[in-house]
């Protein structure tokens, strides 16, 4: 009964198309609320860091984008499993529409990290383990996008992409730990990262709110792209004609 309801409302392209139209305004409301609170509290109300001064406020963009960069890849890998095992059409659409959003968030995390690093560490880039693994995550996203862009047949594109995403998610922890190993073996970070024992609650709440805001933003963009993709793939079916006319 429940499964049937889920299938009807979310998993079939038609159900998703109608449900997402209903969900989008709610998501937008949540996004605006979280974003405004995070922005105002983060930029104006939260006190300046005692070591980093006002410069630390870039954390409210940097941490959410880095968090989403990883979360989106994980979501893509789960969708990839659903694509290969259950042949869920909507999971494949979720996966292929997520990739470029994830790539942009990864890029944003790298760029804001660089901008943050310049005044704090004195350099735009250090070959720190975390930075390097995020860079490699960007390469994984770009490889996925490149593979999807050259395959014309949708079902082949979905399955090939799913295999690559699964290979990526098996390898990501290995890559991450190998980079940590490489980093400690060659040399310690020349400029030690500023010790942050634990973030104060006044700084934490706007950060959590910003993470939620970024997440809602991702969902909004994702749903819009997925609706486009559904129209593209199903434009010959009867229900599209009925919905659009």
């Amino acid at each position: 009964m429940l499964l049937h309801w889920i299938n009807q409302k979310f998993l079939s392209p038609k159900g998703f198309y109608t449900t997402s139209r209903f969900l989008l305004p709610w998501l937008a409301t949540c996004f605006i609320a979280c974003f405004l609170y995070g922005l105002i509290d983060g930029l104006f109300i939260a006190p300046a860091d005692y070591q980093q001064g006002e410069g630390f406020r870039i954390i409210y963009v940097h941490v959410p984008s880095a968090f989403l960069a990883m979360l989106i890849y994980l979501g893509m890998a789960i969708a990839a499993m659903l694509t290969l095992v259950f042949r869920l059409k909507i999971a494949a659409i979720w996966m292929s529409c997520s990739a470029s959003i994830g790539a942009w968030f990864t890029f944003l995390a790298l760029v804001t990290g660089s901008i943050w690093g310049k005044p704090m560490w004195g350099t735009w880039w250090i070959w720190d383990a975390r930075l390097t693994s995020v860079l490699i995550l960007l390469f994984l996203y770009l490889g996925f996008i490149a593979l999807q862009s050259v395959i014309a047949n949708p079902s082949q594109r979905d399955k090939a992409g799913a295999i690559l995403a699964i290979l990526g998610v098996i390898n990501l922890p290995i890559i991450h730990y190998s980079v940590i190993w490489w980093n400690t073996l060659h040399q310690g970070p020349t400029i030690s990262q500023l010790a942050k024992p634990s973030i104060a609650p006044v700084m934490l709440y706007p950060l959590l709110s910003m993470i939620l805001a970024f997440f809602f933003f991702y969902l909004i963009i994702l749903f819009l792209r997925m609706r486009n993709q559904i129209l593209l793939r199903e434009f010959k079916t009867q229900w599209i004609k009925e919905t659009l006319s």
Partner: protein
Amino acid sequence: MMIKALLTMIHYECLLTLRQAFSWLTPLLFFIMVVCFFPLALGSDHALLHTIAAGIIWVAAVLAILLSLNNLFQRDAQEGYLELFLLSSYPLTLVVFCKVVSHWIIYCVPLLLLTPVLALLLNLSFYENFILILTLLLGTPVLCLLGAVGAALTVSLRHQSLLLPILIMPFYIPILIFGTSTLVAANSGQLLNGYFAILAALGLLCFAFAPFLAALALRIGVSQ
């Protein structure tokens, strides 16, 4: 019975590739030339070359293997053998495994044999040379196994030779790191068991996953 069929298949695959000298000589020549490019670009300072030798040889080996991977399934796909593999009574995973083994024998063994000579050019001692070859011996099968997944994913595509390196290179990073850091550790007098164990563990992991994923990818590529 199964083992015999597998051995026969590896044997024929090797013979077929060996007869086309161009296809296995090109990556080998490429390997030599890439190694020679580094001293030309960075200067012939002995101490410098000695510190970066392992890195140079590893990078050159990775590039040469990437170049060779286009040959892994392409001929079979063009001439229709892939469909026969799919229809045969042997599991496709095993067929893929045989192809990877024969690929390693044809492309990587000559590369391993050439490494001592090139390492001499880069000023490595006998002991370092030995360690380097051991790491390559453990690492190159992993490169071939992971590469097989990429080659299978791109087998039916027109842009294969461009796309394949982009897809696969991020996955080569751990092997590259552990392969080269073994020599750094050897020079600082550390025990090397852990390094070899990790390389071997990566190999076993790929041994378990890669042929299966590659077979899955081939099936998708061919069914269209």
